[in-house]
């Protein structure tokens, strides 16, 4: 064994093991997240949720998987076979690729077995840019899948979905730029380490607006409710994946869930200090098994964000398409631009960082006031109900 090991660079083994862990754990977790989501949805709606397969339905994911595998694969006549088969893979692969720069634990601390690293690709100093570049490729999966299905509804659905994803790409990227400027790096792990000083170092406190924008746009990117216009399971004809069945359909769903997990990781790492928690898990904490606790803290935060996303799903009704576009182009993009300018100003003039908190809140308030004023003006310029009634009567 040692003889063989000598000829293989340790680096390679570490990377392969980490990839295996990440892919395996992510897929396993996704299947149980789907169960959790179904259970939570049921609880929120006073139902019971899946409870037939095993106690409390814990084997439901297995049953789902078996069903997906055994279902008939239907390829519509006239579909572009190559693209039709490639699309779900593109969607899933691009999201999984993004995991390669996400630190899912404390990187570079003592006491971890040498073949695990908690980060597939260390020292990628353009981490954030890489994530955005890769995940925005997933729109190809959407648009190719819809187009290759040879179905009008799929094509329309894919147009809808890609318009949404592209629109939200912009605020998503720009909201993070503020943090990148503050930390003067694009490396996610470095950004994480910058927040591990104290509780008040978490970027959430200086960039609350960016956090809100990032989270909202990330939901839209992942096609989650309230932005799931690309699916609209309830009222429209599916969407871009109308023609997909069995495992190909499941891949789209896996992609969506992987995206949710990625979003939750990024939110907790960029805004909520990653594995840092005062007293429990700090860079100084040196007790044995500290790295386990740190992973636990990070996973706890990620879990909280995921549950929050699920709660939102049954809380906010879906946006109409024009509202969706308005929200992105008229609210999120200007706000994230303004936020970026604020960060630049603060850095340029060397002001205290804490000025960013009131500035963020102020920007938010101004945006709210502007929309109130615009709505008022619109109402003033259109006939009141009394006038309409008068017109109608005469």
């Amino acid at each position, binding site marked *: 064994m040692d003889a063989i090991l000598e000829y293989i660079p340790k680096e390679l083994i570490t990377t392969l093991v980490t990839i295996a862990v990440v892919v395996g754990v992510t897929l396993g977790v996704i299947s149980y997240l789907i169960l959790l989501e179904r259970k939570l949805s049921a609880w929120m709606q*006073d139902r*019971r949720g899946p409870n037939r397969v095993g106690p409390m339905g814990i084997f439901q994911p297995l049953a789902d998987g078996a069903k997906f595998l055994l279902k008939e694969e239907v390829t519509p006549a006239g579909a572009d076979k190559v693209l039709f088969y490639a699309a779900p893979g593109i969607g899933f692969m691009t999201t999984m690729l993004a995991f390669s720069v996400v630190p899912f634990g404390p990187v570079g601390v003592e006491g971890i077995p040498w073949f695990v690293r908690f980060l597939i690709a260390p020292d990628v100093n353009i981490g954030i840019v890489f994530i955005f570049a890769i995940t925005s490729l997933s729109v190809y999966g959407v648009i190719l899948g819809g187009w290759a299905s040879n179905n009008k509804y799929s094509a329309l659905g894919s147009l809808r979905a890609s318009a949404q994803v592209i629109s939200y790409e912009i605020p998503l990227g720009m909201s993070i730029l503020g943090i990148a400027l503050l930390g003067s790096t694009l490396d996610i792990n470095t950004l994480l380490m910058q927040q591990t000083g104290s509780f008040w170092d978490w970027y959430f406190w200086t960039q609350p607006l960016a956090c809100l924008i990032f989270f909202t746009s990330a939901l839209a990117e992942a096609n989650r409710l309230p932005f799931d216009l690309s699916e609209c399971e309830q009222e429209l004809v599916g969407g871009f994946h109308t023609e997909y069945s069995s495992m190909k359909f499941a891949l789209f769903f896996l992609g969506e869930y992987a995206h949710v997990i990625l979003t939750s990781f990024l939110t907790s790492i960029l805004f909520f200090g990653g594995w840092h928690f005062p007293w429990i898990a700090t860079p100084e904490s040196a007790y044995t098994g500290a790295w386990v606790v740190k992973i636990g803290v990070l996973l706890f935060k990620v879990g909280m964000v995921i549950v929050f996303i699920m709660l939102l799903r*049954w*809380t906010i009704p879906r946006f109409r398409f024009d509202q969706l576009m308005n929200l992105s182009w008229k609210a999120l993009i200007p706000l994230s631009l303004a936020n970026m300018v604020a960060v630049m100003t603060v850095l340029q003039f060397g002001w205290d960082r804490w000025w960013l908190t009131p500035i963020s809140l102020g920007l938010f*308030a101004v945006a709210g006031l502007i929309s*109130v004023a615009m709505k008022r003006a619109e109402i003033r310029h259109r006939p009141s*109900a009394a006038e309409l*009634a008068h017109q*109608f009567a005469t």
Partner: protein
Amino acid sequence: MAVAKDDVMWIEEPEMGFWEMTFLPAILDGLKTTIRHVTHYDPVTQQYPEEKPSLPLHYRGVHRLNRDEKGRVKCVACMLCATACPADCISIEASAAPPDWPDRDKFPATFVLDELRCIYCGMCEEACPVDAIELTHIYDLTGETRESMRFDREKLLAVYDKTKDDPRDPLRTRRGKLGPAADFGTLPTVAPATQVTAGDRSAQSTAPGTIHTYNNPRPFDDPGGAT
């Protein structure tokens, strides 16, 4: 038809304030509601095969043919039910009643009801002058062949034997006691197949056949039904 002008009500769009424009309070409010459903979890789902639904008393399920006080089929083969049936699923062959059945002239030699064609409207029950045919609460009716779903006289009588002591299918004849077939002239009217509550307009009509159910609890609230 054009809408009458007086019927149109014009409503002003409510003005949105600052906080409403930002949507945050509304989202928080919604989250509170959603979370409350999780913390105060009270599912309304019925686990069907294990938990049976509690049906209202007027539920219309499988039919039964009632017996009179001597245990004979109560039907007098008047064909009213077959005539009333909108699905045309009752076929009766009448024959002269045996001489020792003084209370009627005819009785059904065969009585076949096709439970697959039936739409469970309850018209037969309404039509029957002697309360011989009734719909029970049995709803989970299955069969392996079409033939087995054509219930004949004996099968319908068997349904009666099975359900007569069930609180959900009380004997409606003679205030709960078995009676002869041809006594409907002397009996006071009993509850119609579909009971109406006191507040119902039809309950206030003077037409025969409606019964005021002031003293009865509303069948929906019947706690005994959930067995």
